[in-house]
């Protein structure tokens, strides 16, 4: 099927209210880059659409501000002029992390396909309804590990969605001014998957690529670019 340019011009409205499918959106944006009148019209119509949304009133929960700011504190800014730094920088630490992880007694529980697996998935589904899509993916796989002081951690991995949900339980509070940080470890070493703040907060990591393990370390408040603390827990994904 072919979209004529006449069609494209009339897509300004649908584009402004974001009602195009992904492929249509891509096609239209290609057109937009070359059509000044459409670009102008889109800018105006988008501003109008924004008025529709701005009139909706749900006050955000108070903790959201701290959460957003904390997430920014652990996120590197991209300079407009320099390409993204390769993530392999600082891999000298990776060996230390892996070595430290080996010292931790880790019990892997492979429960895939068993009744308890399904029960646990069902329980997680109801507990974390926003993850129900991930949890109900046909290839969702569940792996668990135990950590210090009787704590446990569970990861639900979906290769097809390229996502992982990490939930821990009974983790002791991290030392003052420190935070737990989750790492995805692939052949290149660890990549930050985010902070567990509070420790029991579920975390979704995307971009699994070839991650073989996840690990938790204790890091200074705000997190680190590369792991600096000892691994408290490690879960093999493969």
């Amino acid at each position, binding site marked *: 099927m072919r979209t004529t340019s006449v069609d494209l011009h009339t897509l300004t*409205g649908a584009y402004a209210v974001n009602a195009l499918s992904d492929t249509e959106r891509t096609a239209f944006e290609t057109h937009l880059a070359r059509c000044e009148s459409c670009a102008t019209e889109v800018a105006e119509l988008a501003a109008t659409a924004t008025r*529709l949304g701005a009139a909706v009133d749900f006050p955000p929960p108070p903790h959201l501000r701290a959460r957003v*700011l904390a997430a920014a504190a652990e996120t590197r800014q991209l300079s407009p002029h320099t390409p993204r730094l390769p993530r392999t920088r600082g891999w000298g630490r990776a060996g230390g992390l892996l070595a430290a992880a080996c010292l931790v007694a880790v019990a892997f529980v492979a429960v895939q396909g068993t009744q308890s697996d399904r029960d646990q998935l069902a329980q997680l589904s109801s507990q974390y309804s926003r993850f129900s899509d991930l949890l109900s993916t046909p290839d969702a796989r569940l792996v668990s590990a135990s950590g210090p002081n009787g704590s446990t951690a569970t990861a639900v991995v979906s290769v097809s969605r390229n996502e992982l949900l990490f939930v821990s339980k009974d983790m002791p509070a991290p030392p003052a001014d420190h935070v737990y940080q989750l790492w995805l470890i692939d052949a290149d070493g660890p990549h930050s998957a985010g902070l567990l703040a509070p420790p029991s907060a579920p975390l979704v990591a995307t971009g699994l690529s070839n991650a073989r393990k996840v690990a938790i370390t204790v890091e200074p408040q705000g997190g680190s670019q590369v792991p600096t603390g000892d691994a408290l827990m490690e879960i093999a994904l493969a």
Partner: protein
Amino acid sequence: MADSPGPPAASRDGRPTDFELVQRLAQGDRSAFGELYDRYGTPSYSLARRICVDPELAEDVVQEAFLALWRHPARFDPTRGSFGTWLMTLVHHRAVDAVRKENTQRRRTVPLTDDVSPPVEGSEHEALVSVVSAEVRAALHTLPEEQRQVIALAYLGGYTQCEVAKLTGVPLGTVKSRTFAAIRRLRGTLGNLWAGETGETTGANR
């Protein structure tokens, strides 16, 4: 982190403009980031919450949108419109992406054929009654009913044109022309300027 002294071209009340805050943010200034959150956190969350329904999903969406701003502030192009419009568009995109992924969520959120078949009632009706301000409601009510329906399903429901066509049983071409007519008409009644909480109603390039 102390606020850096504002550039001379500050807004009338002495507070930095959105664009000045974005520029400071680009230098890694976290207080500027916090200030932008204070200005746009509420409208961002409100929009995300309306589309996602699930409060936690809405929080994720707001966080993602603000992180995208933090990571790459240069993506905002002041020559293309105001910061508020840009950010709300970003939030809308993230929310719609999230909701399109969460199929189960969507089915629960917006009843499909049942409520939509009588065109007045249904998800868009609920949106109008419960959360949309009088001004916008009034503007929407100046639209012919069939236009109001498509715009509410599209913008506040997060549906694509194809989905709206399926939901309403109206041919896709008609949905497209109604969307186009509706938003253009709203441009006339609502105007196209961002009227956020900051009082900054003009594009940063003015």
